[in-house]
């Protein structure tokens, strides 16, 4: 059970406070309700580029990092297809510095052409390092547009095409800020040895004066149901073939989300899981295999990805995967096996609550999903999944017409 307090400032900023007396540090997490899915299809990668600019100084403060480091703090951020999340840990005594810094960059940034140019280069190097210069690094850049024809999940956070970053103009960047960064589009979550009163005072002092803004209306097209199998073959300079199979699944808000997550665990969580035991250990068709869900708020994907052993054809490898998926539907899972993956989930959940930062992040994210209290119902949601739920969901999920397959082929 995570206990917390909650209040909303007049400008719409939601604030969550969690008391954890076991730590001398404080975790400050600021979630903005904007991600790659909110981008204009002609200007993708902006949410992430913007995350970089958030560290380049704000309207009254030339450097974000220096004063924070001076106060013994450390920070980072990440961008997903749904959110942009900023987080700080610092000694409790110096908590106010975090409020000062975060509130100032919510008011406005110190935009300049030079800073934009530099961060464009850094992001292009990030793209090179993570996606191009790693074996199999670009697979998801092709898998996404294969699975999504309409929904903006078709591009990764780095963007649809790196030229969008290269061509980004200062005006577009400023517009992006004004339409998405605002107290009424953010959730502040603070965890540590703190009280609601002291956080409320600080929040009112630093964030209270910031005016709410008109947030761009979210108008995301829903992905139409996929009706035929889709395939794509890529040839790359890699030592072994790999296969990626993506199946459309439910949104984060539906009960089906928990069911599908458990299906992915039955398939590949831990060394006793089905895909590992059958396809890596027994048949030895794969050197590694994984099944996981993308965890998106809108309708996401369950993706199975594997590196195929030398000498094994795509056809044999794919049949073997489909055969295992078929077994989830046919009647051979028992309560023991379902309990095993539920136990594992519960354990991960416990370990995940060991530090204040994780708790602050989870609370903010659950508040975004509608109610921070959801965090305390997670285990129960997973516990409530039945064998029948698994079969029913798997039947719809693993339909051939619901699948996009990427054959990642070695060149030669």
């Amino acid at each position: 059970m995570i206990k917390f307090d909650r209040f909303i400032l007049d400008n719409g900023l939601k604030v969550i406070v969690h008391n954890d007396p076991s730590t001398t540090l404080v975790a400050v997490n600021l979630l903005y309700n904007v991600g790659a899915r909110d981008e204009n299809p002609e200007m993708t990668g902006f949410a992430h580029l913007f995350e970089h600019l958030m560290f380049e100084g704000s309207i009254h403060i030339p450097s974000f990092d220096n004063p924070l480091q001076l106060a013994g703090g450390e920070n980072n951020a990440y961008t997903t297809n749904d959110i942009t999340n900023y987080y700080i840990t610092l000694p409790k005594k110096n908590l106010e510095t975090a409020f000062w810094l975060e509130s100032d960059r919510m008011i406005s940034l110190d935009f300049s052409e030079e800073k934009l140019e530099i961060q464009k280069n850094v992001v292009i190097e990030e793209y090179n390092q993570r996606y191009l210069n790693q074996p199999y690094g670009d697979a998801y850049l092709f898998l996404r547009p294969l699975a999504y024809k309409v929904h903006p999940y078709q591009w990764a956070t780095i963007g649809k095409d790196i030229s969008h970053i290269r061509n980004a103009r200062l005006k577009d960047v400023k517009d992006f800020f004004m339409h998405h960064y605002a107290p009424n589009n953010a959730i502040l979550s603070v965890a540590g040895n703190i009280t609601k009163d002291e956080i409320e005072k600080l929040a009112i002092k630093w964030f209270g004066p910031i005016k709410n803004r008109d947030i761009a209306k979210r108008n995301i097209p829903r992905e139409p149901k996929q009706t035929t199998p889709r395939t794509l073959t890529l040839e790359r300079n890699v030592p072994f073939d790999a296969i990626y199979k993506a199946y459309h699944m439910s949104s984060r808000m539906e009960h089906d989300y928990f069911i599908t997550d458990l299906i992915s665990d039955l398939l590949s969580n831990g060394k006793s899981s089905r895909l590992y035991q059958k396809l890596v250990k027994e048949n030895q068709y794969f050197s590694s295999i994984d099944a996981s869900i993308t965890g998106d708020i809108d309708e996401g994907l369950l993706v199975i990805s594997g590196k195929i052993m030398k000498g094994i054809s795509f056809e044999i490898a794919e049949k073997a995967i489909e055969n295992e998926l078929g077994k989830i539907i046919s009647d051979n899972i028992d309560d023991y096996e379902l309990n095993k993956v539920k136990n594992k989930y519960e354990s991960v959940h416990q370990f995940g609550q060991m530090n204040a930062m994780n708790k602050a992040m989870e609370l903010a994210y659950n508040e975004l999903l509608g109610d921070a209290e959801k965090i305390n119902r997670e285990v129960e949601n997973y516990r409530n999944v039945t064998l029948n739920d698994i079969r029913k969901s798997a039947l719809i999920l693993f339909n051939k017409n619901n699948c996009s397959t990427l054959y990642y082929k070695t060149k030669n």
Partner: protein
Amino acid sequence: MSINRTIQPPFQSIDSIKLIEPEKIILNNAIPLYNINTGTQDVLKIDLSFDAGSWFQEKPLISNTVNEMLAEGTSHLTSMEIAEKLDYYGAFIQSNPSKDFAGMTLFTLKKYLPETIHILEDIIKNPVFPEHELRTYISKRRQSFQIEMEKVSNLARRKFNEQLFGKDHPYGKNPNLDDHDKITRADLIDFHEKYFHAANCRIMVSGKTDQETIAQVNARFGNTDWVNKTKPGIISTSINETIEKDAFIKKEDVTQSAIRIGKQTINKHHPDYPKLEVVNTILGGYFGSRLMKTIREEKGYTYGISSFLVSLKNAGFFVIASEVGADSARSAIEDILNEIRKLREEKVSPEELKLVKNFMIGDMMRSFDGPFELAQSYQSIIDLGIDNAFFNRTIDAIKTITPEEIIQLANTYLNEKSMVKTIVGKFD
């Protein structure tokens, strides 16, 4: 009422850190057990560490393979049974092979400790390395090895180690693809017998521990039935006579080149080490470091660049690591060397030094915040045989170091003219 947003709210430099030292308990068979009882969740982490790293192996890959195959079958349980039980109790195990050490970590819910520690005992004491499991392991490892060999960062790390220590030195030697086929079951059994026993073991227990926890660990690992009296042989190390100072490995079709620059230097045993860590932090040890400012934030050559002081048991080295745009390698290296030179020649400003000091103390607080963090911090010195006061010496060093000392330390230990360079990818 309007507030002045241009001025940082009052803050304090942190004077002291609450260090919770582990309680040391000697088990019946003389294994030292370190106990850290703190935290909010009913979970436990148990680390067993052995002097059994690749330093000790007579053939490539043996130490790693032994460590990673401990859970692939024992005299009582098959690989599948081990995996099944651990998964059922929601427990995780992790093997920790490195150059000096090897070992196993168990993460478990406290309520399931009796079940999970029983499995941990079995995989540590009674592994049998079944032949068919070994074949499966090797064919998997061959593939992942070949994938790793496509990465410029991995190629650079290998070459750099070779340059620093020499091709035949235990710290400089790299495994090759063919070496995978030479591993035999007998090698593994032999290595396990020599090194995985009580006289060569340390245990760290952290989380919500109590007397019962310690009693259970003692019951499983405190007996004299797994003490091996045979002392491991002396490891012969050749001195690296001919240093290859600049190495370049060409790799076509890359978008980035990997760079490594560094040299052998002191490790944590040396009294100058804590202050040298401050010097390293200024240069490349945190997000606001000089290397990050120049190579990433001013020039935009890279997504990230860092420098490290690495403490091995029998050596220490300094290394700068980065992946830079394929066309920028030459300019990036020039800028890097220039940053080291500045550190040797110019006094650090009081503002920068204060910032680094405060950041480092804050960072130490973070590395002691929580049971697993404490365990990791203490294990890093206990394994090396360093006393707990190391952390107090570090705090003291951070607080007292002067700009003059920084110049002196940089000149003594980090002269760029004596460093080796490795580049993998393109170089003009």
